[in-house]
Structures are given as C-alpha cells and as structure tokens.
C-alpha cells in the first residue's frame, strides 16, 4: 500500500487545499495521471501520481487545507504490506494531530441556500476567478452539476470577439482573468518566505562573465529565417540548452544542499516566469539536457502561459534542480539571483545588447550578454562556479552543436 501525500511544491509551501479529486476510489492509476487539484499560493496545481495501482481510499475531503506531507489517499499497488492492516487506523488519527489550519470557508453558502446550485469546488473556483455568474450556467456533470468544463466553455464564449459593437468590448475589458488582490498577496508572501530563507541560510558567492553572443544570435537568426512564425526560436531557448550542457560537465551545481551536497541525476532547469500581477513562478523544464533546442522552445511556449494562468502540474513545480533567470530584451544589463532552496545555484542572464568587445587584439561591436552565477558556498567553491561559466561560454560559441 502506498501513502499518497500532500506534495511539497517548493521551499515556500507549507500547506495546500485539496480542491478536487480527479480520481475516484477503485480507479486504476498510472504513473503521471492527475489525481487531484490542489490550491497553493502559486495557484491551482494539478497533482500527479508517480506510482501504479488502484486508488484505495481518499482520506482528505475536497475543500480541506492540510500541511505538506499529510497522507491524502492510499494507493494499492498490490504489494503485500506488513503493516497494511494497521496503517489505516494509524494514519487517520495522525491526520487529526496535524492542525488543519484555517479551513477554507466556502463564501458561497448564501447562494447555495437560496438557489441550490450544484457545482464542483474546482468549477466554483474557476468561475470566481473569472467573474462568471454560475447561476447562468447549465451543468453537464453528474446530476446536472456544473463542472470545470462548463465554466471554461462559458469563459471562452465570453472571450470571443463580439460583433455587437463597442459597448460589449468595453465591458469585457473588466473581465480578464486577473488574480485577486488576495491571490497576489499570497504570492508576494510566498516569494518573501522562500527568498528570506535563501538569504538567511545560504552563503551565496557570485561570479560574472561577459559572453560574446555573435555566433549564437547569428544561428538563431538563420534558423528563424526558414521557419514559419509559430516555430521561431527565442535566444533564451539556446541559453537554457547551453546551461543544461554546462551543468552536465559541472554536476556539483545540479544538486541540492540537504545534509550535504546531493547531486541530482536529472537536469530539470527551473525557469523564472514573472507574473504581470507581481510575483514569480518557477516551472521546471523536465530533463532539459535530453531535449533539443526546438523541444525546449516548445516547452517554454507551453509552460509560460500555463504558469501565468496558474495551471501547472506538481512535477513542474517540485522537480527543479537548478534555476535560470533571464531579463530579456529592454531590461537590466545584469541580474544577481537568489538561490531557490534547496538548490545550490542560479544563473542570471542580462539583456543581450551591442557592446565593444576585444578579441585577438581587435576591437569590435558585438551582441554581448553578462552572465552571473550565484552559488551556495557550502556546496561548492568559486573554482567550480568559474568552471561552469567557462563551460557555458564554450557551448554558446558553438551553437550549432547545442
């Protein structure tokens, strides 16, 4: 029997609210299946299972907020478990010991009393965030209840450009899915908690190297020339791939610091995505090293909009082994990052801009990027960090091999 626990989706997460079970008792689960939706400070996250088996028992009700590590369900993997008969009894009271923090109150009790609208908690959440009036919806779920799909359809219908004139467009301007102030606040607090922990516990050291991007930018330009607009690359895809290759050469930076240095087998690069409403989300590009530059670009195209819409999966939030922050066009020249614990390094790319650059006794104007590395001095020393930046530079000078 496998205990399925509330996952830890980052250093800043203490608890999560189980919003909706996507699987029912008795259902067969496969690795990677989405078993539930959990609300965290980073929004609604789809939680995946990493085991095969039958969903035996659900222990936490929809709407309950429980600490990280709380057993949410039992999954029967068919393996005989010595403590199988005792586990359920042991676990259930254990849960009561965990103080269930402020239980999420459903603010819609009033409506329900009046009109008795059947709606799943997830659908309600989405409707609320998008200001959809649920009393106008027709449910297609069990017993006519409103489910996620109904709300999403209502939202997409609302988004369709209306031909009925300006008035409607004027109205819809108010509607865009903007996280509420409460959400933005929770996000701010989550970033605050993680970064305070980082600054308090991690002795950072910083290195910096200027890198010539001529070859890399030429390669991107040439590649993009032959492509339809939807398939074009951003330089950042190349930067991410180069970082993955450099990490492969300097594995001490692809690690965590948890009772000593723990190297990670997979290279999952977390990519800092800033949100318009403030705050950041850092989804992971899983197995970055085994992806091509094109695949990395595809992954970014998929991840960034989902990160901004708060629609990430648990593996994408919990599996990062290293972080990249990139300022992009029109921004600062350099960025010195704070490490996301328990990782041991973060690389920062400033804006790529034209600068005077000397090489072989000649001065020229080239696209230059200032690259910084912040690394954990408990885990590595400057020599390792320096080696990493040198490796990164080497890969950026050979873009066709990336």
């Amino acid at each position, binding site marked *: 029997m496998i205990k399925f626990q509330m996952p830890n989706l980052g250093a800043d997460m203490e608890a999560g609210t189980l919003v909706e079970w996507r699987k029912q008792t008795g259902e067969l689960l496969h690795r990677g299946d989405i078993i539930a939706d959990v609300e965290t400070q980073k929004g609604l996250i789809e939680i995946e299972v990493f085991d095969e088996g039958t969903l035996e028992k659900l222990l936490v009700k929809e709407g309950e907020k429980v600490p990280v590590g709380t057993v949410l369900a039992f999954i029967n993997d068919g393996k005989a478990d010595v403590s199988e008969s005792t586990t359920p009894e042991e676990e259930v009271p254990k849960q009561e010991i965990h103080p269930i923090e402020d239980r999420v109150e459903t603010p819609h009790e009033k409506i329900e009393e009046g009109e008795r609208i059947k709606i799943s908690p997830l659908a309600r959440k989405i409707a609320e965030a998008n200001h959809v009036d649920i009393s106008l919806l027709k449910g297609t779920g069990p017993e006519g209840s409103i489910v996620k799909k109904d709300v999403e359809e209502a939202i997409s219908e609302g988004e369709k*450009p209306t031909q009925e004139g300006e008035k409607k*467009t004027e109205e819809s301007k108010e509607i*865009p899915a*903007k996280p509420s102030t409460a959400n933005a606040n929770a996000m701010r607090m989550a970033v605050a908690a993680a970064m305070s922990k980082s600054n308090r516990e991690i002795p950072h050291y910083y290195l910096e190297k200027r890198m010539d991007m001529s070859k890399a930018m030429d390669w991107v330009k040439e590649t*993009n020339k032959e492509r339809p*607009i939807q398939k074009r690359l*951003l330089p950042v895809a190349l930067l991410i791939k180069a970082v993955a290759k450099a990490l492969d050469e300097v594995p001490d930076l692809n690690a965590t610091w948890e009772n000593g240095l723990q190297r990670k087998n997979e290279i999952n690069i977390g990519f800092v995505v800033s949100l*318009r409403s403030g705050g950041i989300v850092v989804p992971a590009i899983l197995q970055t090293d085994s992806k091509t530059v094109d695949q990395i670009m595809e992954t970014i195209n998929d991840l960034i*909009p989902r990160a901004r819409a708060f629609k990430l999966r648990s593996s994408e939030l919990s599996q990062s082994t290293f972080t990249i922050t990139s300022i*992009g066009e029109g921004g600062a020249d350099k960025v010195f990052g704070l490490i996301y614990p328990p990782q041991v390094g973060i690389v920062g790319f400033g804006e790529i801009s034209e600068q005077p650059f000397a090489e072989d006794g000649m001065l020229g104007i080239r696209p230059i990027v200032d690259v910084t590395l912040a690394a954990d001095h408990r885990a590595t020393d400057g020599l390792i960090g320096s080696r990493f930046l040198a490796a990164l530079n080497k890969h950026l000078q050979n873009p066709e091999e990336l």
Partner: protein
Amino acid sequence: MTEEEIKKTVFQLLQRIAPETDPSRLMPEENIREVLNIDSFDALQFIVSISEKLNVDIPEEDYGKTSNLKSLLAYLEKKVKK
C-alpha cells in the same frame, strides 16, 4: 481590411497580452513593449497572433518595425494590401 479595423485588432491582441492596460491610450511613437510592460516571450506571442489574425507573414528582420503604433500600423497596412 480598413486602417480602423487593423487598429482595432492590434488593440484587442495587445489587451489580451496585457489585460490591465489600455492600449488605445498609446501615443503613436511610444515604445509599445516598454509602456505596456511586455516581455520578450509575450512580444513574440503578439507577433504570432497578429500574423495569424491578419494573415500576413512577419519575418524576423521586420520585428523592429513593430515597436511603436505608428510604424506597426503602417507596416501592417502595407502587408495587408499586398
């Protein structure tokens, strides 16, 4: 497609990317990305969506012409008429 319709489409797409802003307030020569706070990724998404919506091809070397409203609208009008 008239000049007015192109403008309307541009505003709609910008609004989708930067929902809390009012693109119709942009001055003709203001840098769109700076004023609406649009990053490199969203800038690419904008160009993709405008090319799909107006059915025009925008090669990478022309991205510079999309930086402010004045040059963007002039560029798109020329492209649409072709």
